[in-house]
């Protein structure tokens, strides 16, 4: 199927929580001998299946610990699922953590190249986007000083500019709307909106149901690693709202 961008099939993620972390050989040998290596299994995701078509905008909602971030990490390829498989067509830009690959000793300009290369871009491609990224970040001459001297807002602006200007096929957004100062926030929200509306495949994780309703077509509701409901944004969000308000009492 050519128009399926992401296919998640029977994905389970199991974490082995050993009761104590074994980090040395001595401990490992002693505990293995005494048969003292106790694990308790924790499933962050249990047989999740769904597919996302090209250009579809998907929201993922659920309470803390529902497995939202784990799911995003699996789709981004950071985590490998214990069972099942994930097929992704196209390049993924994870906006999981802005500037995850920043090196604080390097200048902003050098970090643009580094960060874009981490996302698998070629030198030629980054060259062509460089000016646009600097321009959008609004950092001006600060781009040539090491980013250890940046304020956290400046760093976030640079990270956001890199991630959004690289023109990915699939955008993964984990609660990042609103970085930097008031002015930049407005600009970044606009960018976000235009990216989301530009026909790209978008996966958005957010606790703001308002935002989810507004930006997505389809919503997946996760609860303790399982899909509770999947379907039209408004319907599922309302179901979720109803569940939240009923369980609070």
């Amino acid at each position: 199927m050519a128009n399926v961008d992401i296919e998640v099939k029977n994905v389970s993620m199991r974490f082995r929580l050993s009761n104590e972390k074994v980090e040395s050989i001595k401990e490992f040998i002693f505990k293995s001998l005494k048969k003292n290596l106790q694990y308790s299994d924790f499933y962050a995701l249990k047989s999740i299946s769904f597919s996302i078509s090209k250009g579809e905008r998907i929201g993922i909602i659920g309470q803390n610990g529902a497995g939202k971030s784990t799911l995003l990490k699996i789709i981004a390829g950071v985590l490998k699922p214990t069972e099942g498989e994930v097929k992704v067509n196209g390049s993924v830009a994870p906006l999981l953590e802005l500037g995850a690959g920043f090196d604080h000793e390097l200048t902003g300009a050098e970090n643009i190249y580094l960060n874009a290369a981490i996302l698998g871009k070629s030198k030629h491609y980054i060259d062509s986007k460089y000016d646009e990224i600097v321009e959008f970040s609004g950092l001006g001459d600060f781009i040539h000083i090491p980013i250890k001297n940046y304020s956290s807002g400046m760093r976030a602006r640079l990270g956001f500019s890199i991630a959004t200007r690289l023109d990915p096929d699939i955008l993964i957004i984990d609660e990042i709307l609103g970085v930097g100062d008031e002015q930049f926030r407005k600009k970044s929200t606009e960018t976000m909106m235009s990216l989301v509306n530009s026909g790209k495949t978008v996966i958005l994780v957010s606790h703001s149901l308002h935002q989810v309703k507004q930006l997505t077509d389809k919503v997946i509701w996760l609860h303790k690693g399982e899909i509770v409901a999947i379907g039209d944004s408004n319907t599922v969000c309302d179901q979720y709202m109803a569940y939240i308000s009923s369980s609070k009492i």
Partner: protein
Amino acid sequence: MRKYVVYLKTFQKYSFLLSLLVRKEVKKKYKGSFLGILWSLLNPLLHMLVLTLVFSTLFNTSIENFPVYMLCGFLIFNFFSSSTMTSMKSLIFASGLITKVYIPKYIITISTILSNFIFFLISLIDLVLIMIVTRADITVNVLYAPIYLIFLFIFSCGISLMLATVTVFFRDIEHIYGVLITALHFASAIFYPADIIPQKYQFVLQFNPIYYFIEGFRDSVYYGVTPHIYNLLVCFFLAFISLVIGVLVFERNQDKFILHI
């Protein structure tokens, strides 16, 4: 077969990242120091000076042209020890990155080895300088030297991939390995002639993989003779086998790295 095509494609995709990481490490090593990368030249020279003073005055060594003899062993060993020692920790240092973005993880370990190899190549200039200053005989056999450098590089890659993998799961290796490297250092005939080791302890050299590289490199550069074919074969197999094991060990475990760092 398709698997390897995919591998090559991903490698190509991330080759720019690899070059950036290497450049970054080279730049950062001597950052803030006044002489910068010149230290890669100065450091071995100073070591050579100290050892030459100690061994030619105190111990009255019988080795002819001691500085060249010593540098041949010292530089080879130094590359092996520094590249394996730094790359074994490479994955742990890069945890902030690996846990957030997907990149082929071997890129990180390989970039560490490559940057060490660059320092090593720079330090070889010392050897050339000292050979010119001491008017050492250079024969056509010096052309064998690059072969040893390539084998040594591959061998270090294999060992580093193994060490980096094991270190993720057992941090203790770091401390054990430090001691092991010191032992290897003394057992590599770097600043003494190999034949002063008594016959019954010669096995120490035979079981020391680094010594084969030093021996072959010395033959071609210091003695100016054709290296023994047996020695060349041993180095080839050491490089080949360690790379195969290294890649296998790394690949089998790489999906678990993120859960442990």
